[in-house]
């Protein structure tokens, strides 16, 4: 059974320039002193267990650790302290241009990205057809991707990330560039995928997106979990916090 466990997971980024310790107003980051050096405490002792069927939306200020939490969950990063246990196949959608070469066509890029995402060889042609169909780029599929709008790139990237069955799907702020039609399609596709994928973690600044795709909300503040539970109450508290 797929699950994702964060066990007192902490991540500290090195500070590349002299910086004063303490809270940084306006952004969610916190500077701490570790030994002789200052570090940015991106996540601080995160305890979280996600089981099959969990759909969690992550909200928080810029720098509060949303992307870092997703990177930990994907295995891209390891925590400095604590542990993260990942059971299941992970797919990420952190960017809509997964290593894409803008001078190459969508077809070439989809093939390369399919390799990067370890999609089995026999499924690559099906994936290609599926992504082109979903993204509705039609005749543009042969054009260099630099000629695409950001929304079109988002469609291709989203189509690719959701083109194969996965146990854990992690998404970071990629809906912003799409139009309403894309949003509806993405929602339908994601709902279909969620039926197969067991766990969804989605970071966004938008209440609407979180409430559309998720069942629970997690509010990160300065690398710590401030609240976890009902979307309505957490989003309400978050809005209130942000307005002050």
């Amino acid at each position, binding site marked *: 059974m797929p699950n994702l466990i964060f066990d007192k997971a902490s991540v500290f980024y*090195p500070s590349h320039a002299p910086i004063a310790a303490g809270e940084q107003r306006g952004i969610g980051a916190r500077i701490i002193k570790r030994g002789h050096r200052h570090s940015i405490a991106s996540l601080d002792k995160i305890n979280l267990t996600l089981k099959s069927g969990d759909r969690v939306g992550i909200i928080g200020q810029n720098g509060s650790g949303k992307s870092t939490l997703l990177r930990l969950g994907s295995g891209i*990063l390891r925590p400095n302290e604590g542990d993260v246990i990942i059971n299941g196949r992970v797919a*990420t959608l*952190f*960017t809509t241009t997964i290593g894409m070469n803008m*001078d190459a066509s969508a077809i070439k890029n989809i093939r390369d990205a399919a390799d990067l995402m370890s999609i089995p060889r026999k499924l690559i042609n099906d994936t290609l057809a599926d992504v082109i169909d979903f993204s509705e780029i039609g005749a543009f599929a042969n054009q260099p991707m630099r000629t695409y709008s950001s929304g079109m790139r988002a469609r291709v990237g989203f189509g690719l990330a959701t083109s194969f069955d996965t146990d854990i799907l992690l998404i970071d702020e990629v809906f912003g560039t799409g139009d309403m039609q894309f949003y509806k399609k993405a929602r339908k596709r994601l709902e279909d995928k969620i039926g197969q994928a067991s766990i969804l973690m989605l970071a966004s600044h938008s209440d609407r997106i979180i409430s559309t795709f998720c069942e629970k909300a997690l509010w990160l503040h300065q690398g710590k979990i401030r609240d976890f539970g009902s979307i309505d109450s957490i989003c309400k508290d978050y809005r209130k916090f942000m307005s002050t």
Partner: protein
Amino acid sequence: MTYLVLRMLLLPFSRVWLFILMKLVAMIQTYHRSGIADVVASLKLPRLWLRLGVRDLVNDHARASLGILWPLIGALAWIVIIYFFIGNSLGEGNPSYLAYLTIGIVVYNFASGVLVNGVNSFMRYRNLILNVPNPLFIYPLRTLTKVTVSTGLQILFVIAALYICKSPPQLSWIWVLLALPLYFLTGTLLALGMGLAGVFFGDLRFMMQPIMRMLMFTTPIFWYSKGEGIRMLATVYNPLSHYIAIVREPLLGNSFPYLSLWVVIGCTIVIGVISLTLFHVARYSMIRHF
């Protein structure tokens, strides 16, 4: 050190053995998170790094009408210029000088490609590393693929030079089959170590070009190492000259340089141990450092 060894030998059930045993158990338990597990996982994805390595080479030359022929043209220009302008004095009238020079330049180009591209093995793919969960060792392998394809095409020049120098195929050429895997192994490990170091030390990538230029002149690529003096020292203490020798000498029909082979094997082991240790210890720090 001696005390430790004696103690380990004399006290088989001592705390030292227990400590080692515990470490081994811990290593097995955490194998899936080790650098070696990453290396093994990467080696299981040959289609990925081969395809992406070739794509990198093609993309680098995508806007040039001659495309990937440019590295070939560059190498040919070097060979022609050195042979016709200074070959007379440096070649010492040796009839196989053209082949000697060509093999030297092709191996040098491989080494140069590995070092110059290797420093960027991880930095270049920073965006990809941060966004797609893949084993990290695929990136040095990708770099090596790019360099190998680029330099591999230059083997045509070696064949042509051997033909012009009337050097017929001979049994000693089999030694090259041993040398090539050592080249690939050293190249990958070097790209790994340099790539990691390149993330932490930003100056490194700017140092590589001048270092390679220096190596061009301090390695017996277009001059012969004979007698004593600084040239001889540069030959003996420069690992690159040994890497060249294990390919050049058998191809030219000379006796195989066993000493150079041992130096190459030694260098490969040292580079391997340093790079893999660094990789095991620092790969996640590298990502946080991006």
